[in-house]
Each structure stands twice: as C-alpha cells, then as structure tokens.
C-alpha cells in the first residue's frame, strides 16, 4: 500500500490549505442556508391572520358556517361597517383581509347561481392567497353538495361541510408540521454542499495527482514492478477515503443544525443523495486531476467547474427560476440531478412510488455519470503509460 500511504502523506502536507477551504465553504453554506427564511405562508400551524367578516345577507346557516370555518383558521376581528374605519383598520394592519358577504348570497348559492364575495385586502400580503384558498374551498365544497345532493337542507349541508373541511384541515396541519423549516433549510444546505464538495474534491485530488503525474515521478513509478491495476486501485482507494472524509465533515454540520430531522426518511435520503453525488464529484475530480498540468490550472478549474455547475444547476438560484436552455445544459452535469433530487426530497411530505421513483432516477443518473467518467479516466491513464 505504498501508493495509498504516499497519497495521504501528500494530502496531509496540503492539509492546511484543504482545511481552510473546508471551513470557508462550510461557513459559507451555513450563512447562505440560514440567511434563507422560509416564507411565512407555508407554515399553516403558526399563522393566524386577523380578518374582518361583514355579513349583509342576514342570518343564514350557510354564512354562519363559513364564518365559523374561517374563525377556525384566522382571528375574526369585530369592526363596524364603516368604510373609513375599515380603511384605517387595513392601513394599520389591524386586519389584513376584509370579507363582505353581499345581500342575496345564500339564495343565489342555493339556486346554483354564480356568486361573488367581495374582499378588501392589503396588497402583496401572503395572507391573501391563504384566505382565498380557504373561502374557495368552503364554497366549492358547498356547491358540490348542492349539485350532487339537491334535496339537502342547509342544516345538513353545514354539518357535512364541517366534517369534510375539518378533515382537510387536519391533513393540512400535518403536512404543515412535517414540512417544517428544517426541510427547507436542509434542502438548501445540501444543495450548497455540492459546491463545497466539488471544489474541495477537485483541489484535494488534483494536488495528489499533480504529484503522481509529474513526468519524472511518473516515469520512476512506471519503472517499478507495481501493476497498473494495483496502482489504480490504491489511487482510487486513496481518493475514495479522502472523499468520504470530506463528505463526513460536511454532513456532520447537518446533524448539528437539523438534529433528529436527519434521521427521518427525508434526512436519510438527503444523506444518501449527497453520498452518491460525492462519488460522482470524485470521479470527475479524478479525471480533472489527470488532465491538469499545474497548480494554477487546478485552482482555475476547481473554481470554474464547481461554481459553474452550481450556478447552472440551481444551487444558488432555484431551478424553477432558470431558463429552459440553462436547464438543458445543466442536465448534462450531475449537479443538476443532485439538486433536483434534493429539492424533491426536501419538499416531499410523504414518500410514495411516484416521487421515490423520480428521486431514485436522479440518483442513478448521478451514479451512472460517475461510473462513465471513471471509465474514461482509466482508459486515459492506460493510454498514457508509454509516452510517444
């Protein structure tokens, strides 16, 4: 294991440089991750908006049912029906949403006519979509019942709705709690890791390969009776050990930050995904290590490659915001598939055959990428054994 030993002596000699990179990248990833705060409106359990409910339609069980339903999901604030006062309440954010039930609303509903509720809102507030969603859900459910159970009394209808919507709400609440800040943040952290991993692996692997591929040392090694297969094996083993160490250091931060979340299915899949990506990144680093000829080139390639693939693949900018052309190019890099799988894992509330298949397809693609590049590298090494 002479080569393996020498590999680690070289890494050891470069340890301060690698350590600096590691620390800088981890701090960077942590900063970027924590600078990101998940939008409030995804957190259903915590947010209760203040709304005003103004009823011009008189007493009807349907309207009361709506009011009760909204009251379960938001704080109802009593306000006099005075335009000036309502305006002020909105302006001072006493309420963020004013719902007005117009006269004849119940009758119109019962007749199956199209009805409009009036709303006054604070522009651009995250509450708007949420409130619209709640109201639409109630009204759509009601209309569905009218359509399919025409003989239903208002009484029964409101009871049915209560049960239905309560159930749905329950589902929403569950998804809200597991789809927590940890999921979003860990997804981001693991995306950033791809950049750090790439940069550190390229730098580490290249530092070693530059030494072993130095013409004189390479010739000297080729004079020895060590088989090329043995040489490659020890070299790959060295690279692998180095990569796994780097990976362990980088993921250790995720355990500190996200704790038990890392042991959920989401967390474990993120770990698996990042490990597979580590292998692919290593394979690419090994190829680059066998191509670059100087330390200057090494730093340049590390930066360009790590940064470039990260930008293209949606590490810094979400994939949804990137153009189709960019994504097409990105899909030729493993980073793209890694980030895609990460996002799917982080966003998944529960795992089923559908989303698991998509996630594992990405992982397999990343792995295939790594294997293909390794194959190319080994052929290259073989061809270069004898100089022209």
């Amino acid at each position, binding site marked *: 294991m002479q080569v393996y030993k020498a590999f680690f002596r070289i890494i050891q000699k470069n340890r301060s440089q690698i350590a600096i990179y590691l620390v800088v990248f981890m701090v960077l990833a942590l900063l970027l991750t924590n600078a990101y705060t998940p939008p409030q409106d995804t957190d259903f359990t915590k947010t209760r908006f203040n709304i005003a409910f103004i009823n011009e339609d008189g007493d009807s069980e349907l309207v009361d049912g709506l009011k009760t339903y909204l009251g379960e999901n938001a704080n109802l604030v009593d306000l006099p029906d005075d335009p000036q006062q309502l305006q002020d309440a909105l302006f001072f954010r006493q309420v963020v949403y004013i719902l007005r039930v117009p006269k004849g609303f119940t009758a119109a509903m019962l007749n199956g006519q199209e009805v409009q509720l009036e709303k006054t809102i604070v522009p651009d507030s995250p509450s708007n979509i949420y409130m619209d969603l709640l109201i639409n859900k109630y009204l759509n459910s009601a209309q569905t019942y009218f359509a399919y159970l025409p003989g239903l009394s208002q009484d029964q209808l409101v009871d049915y709705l209560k049960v239905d919507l309560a159930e749905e709400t329950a589902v929403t609440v569950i998804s809200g709690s597991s789809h927590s800040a940890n999921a979003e943040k860990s997804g981001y952290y693991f995306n950033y890791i791809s950049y750090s991993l790439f940069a550190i692996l390229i730098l580490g692997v290249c530092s070693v390969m530059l030494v072993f591929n130095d013409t004189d040392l390479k010739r000297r090694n080729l004079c020895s009776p060590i088989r090329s297969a043995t040489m490659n094996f020890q070299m790959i083993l060295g690279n692998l050990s180095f990569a796994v160490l780097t990976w362990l250091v980088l993921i250790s931060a995720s355990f500190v930050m996200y704790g038990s979340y890392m042991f959920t299915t989401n967390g474990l899949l993120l770990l698996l995904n990042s490990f597979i990506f580590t292998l692919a990144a290593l394979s690419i680093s090994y190829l680059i290590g066998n191509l670059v000829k100087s330390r200057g080139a090494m730093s340049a390639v590390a930066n360009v490659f790590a940064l470039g693939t990260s930008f293209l693949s949606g590490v810094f900018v979400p994939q949804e915001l990137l153009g189709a052309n960019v994504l097409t190019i990105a899909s030729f890099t493993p980073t793209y598939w890694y980030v895609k799988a990460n996002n799917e894992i982080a966003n998944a509330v529960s795992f089923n055959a559908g989303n698991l298949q998509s996630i594992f397809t990405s992982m397999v693609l990343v792995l295939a990428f790594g294997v293909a590049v390794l194959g190319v590298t080994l052929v290259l090494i073989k061809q270069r054994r*004898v100089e022209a």
Partner: protein
Amino acid sequence: MVINVKNLVKRYGDLIALDHFNLEVQEGEILGLLGPNGSGKTTAINCILSLLKYDKGTIEIFDQPMSPDAYDIKRDVGIVMQNVAVFEELTVYENIDYFCGLYIADRQTRKKRVAEAIDFVGLNDFIKFFPKKLSGGLLRRLNIACGIAHQPKLIILDEPTVAVDPQSRNNILEGIQKLNRQGATIIYTSHYMEEVEQIASRIAIMDKGKIIAMGTNEELKKKIKSGEHINLELLNPEDLDLEAIKALPHIISAELTDHQLVVKSGRDKNNLIAILDHLKDQNIAIGKIYSEPPTLNDVFLEITGKELRD
C-alpha cells in the same frame, strides 16, 4: 545477456534521437555510456525501460522481451534517473522507503535495505529532511538511494553525479563499484569521461544516436592514432615558429595558448627530445614540462572531429 538492444530507432518528429542503436551488456560488468549532451543517452535508457515508444528495434532484458507490463523484469532493475524523481511531500526516509516498498513488500527486509541505502549514500544525518531542504548534491544522493535500495540485479544510472561535490562523487563511484562486486550489473551514463574511465569495465561512446566506439578504456585508446600530450611552458612564446613544430615527424597537432604549448604526437612515438632540440634551436626558454596519456576525449575527437565537451 543482461541487456540486448538491436537496431533501436527513435524519432522525435524530424529529429532522429536514436539511429540504429545497438547495445549488449553482459552480466557483472559496469558499462559506461559516454556521450555529449543530446547524443541520446537518456532517450536510449527510456526506450530500454519501456517508458518511451520507439519506431524500430528489439529490446531484451535478462533474455526476455521488455514491455510496459514486464513486471518480472522490472522487479530486478534499479533506476536512477537523470532528473531527480522524489516526493517533495515525503521525508528522505519516507522517500527511500516508498520506492523500496514498490519492490519489497516484507517490512523487515525493507527496513534493513532502506537503512543500508541511507548508509550507502551517507544521508544518515538527513533522514527527517524534506527534499526541499537538501542541497543539490544531497538531493542527488537521495535520488540514488531511492534507485538502489531494493538491491536489484541490474542498475541503470543516468548521470547520477551532476552537482555532487568531488568528495561525495568519489564515495558514490566507489559505492557503485561495490554494488558491482556484490553482483549487480551496471549501466552508467555520463558526459564526464574521467568518471567513466574510473569505474567502467567497458565503455560505449555515443554520438548522434549511435554507438560510435566500444571497448575497454585501453582498447579504445589503442584504436586511435594519437598518443600522449606533451605540455610545455614557454617563457618567450612570441618567438615560436608553430608551423615548424607541426612539421616535425609524428606530430599530429600543436597548439599554443598563452605560454602553453600542447603537442600531440602519434601513438607509441616519443617526440619529446626532437621537440626540445627544436625549441633550443629557436632560442625559446622552457619552464615546466609534463606529458599526459591520451584521453577518451581524444578518442571522441578522432572519430567525430569534435570535442566531447562543448
């Protein structure tokens, strides 16, 4: 036969670095490969070791065809490259241990061999040093230790003593002779004829990718016309008639630089008396006089018409 190279041709583009190069090395000899810069010594060695592709020819080591995968051959060959090839990241000890370990797996044996190699090159005080901290000569010695630690049957040394001081150079040359006495066959390339003359049991002289003369030191010198060099210090050289000296019988050349007159005479002819008489006639006073036997440079000069050293 330890090495048998036949009709080796190696081209770099238009340049013919090796032009039907032939070499036979017998077991137990020290073959000195002597040639000026660029004559193709390193190229020949790299081809012999299968490090370079060549255009034509056959190469056998230990009577087996040599190839990049001839691991059994490689196991018994030691190589000291012209360019120092060691790891900057490893200490002197670790470097020798690394290279020795490529050949010898057994830890105990290896430890012993490494210690012997360190003794051999006299690096005992430097085993914890990194190569960057070594002087040029010490670095060369490390390079040698890395090449010979595994005690191979065939050792190829490509100009191993460049930049080594005369004292250590002598130690190294003696060491190489000792390795040879212990049974190793040695190929030693150099453009220092003194070194080659000192240790080689047989000498091959190379020029322009070809071996132009081969034999023992004495055999080579017998092949040429010129004999000893007579050096005379002239006190009034301005009165000298150089042409008259050259016209004397058996004189091959005569050259005057400053106060030094160097006359080369034919082999086995002693012209000293005739020259002295002639100078006396010309009224030239003479200081110191000494004569030298012919050198390999004369051999080279006579065959190629140019000096071995630039």
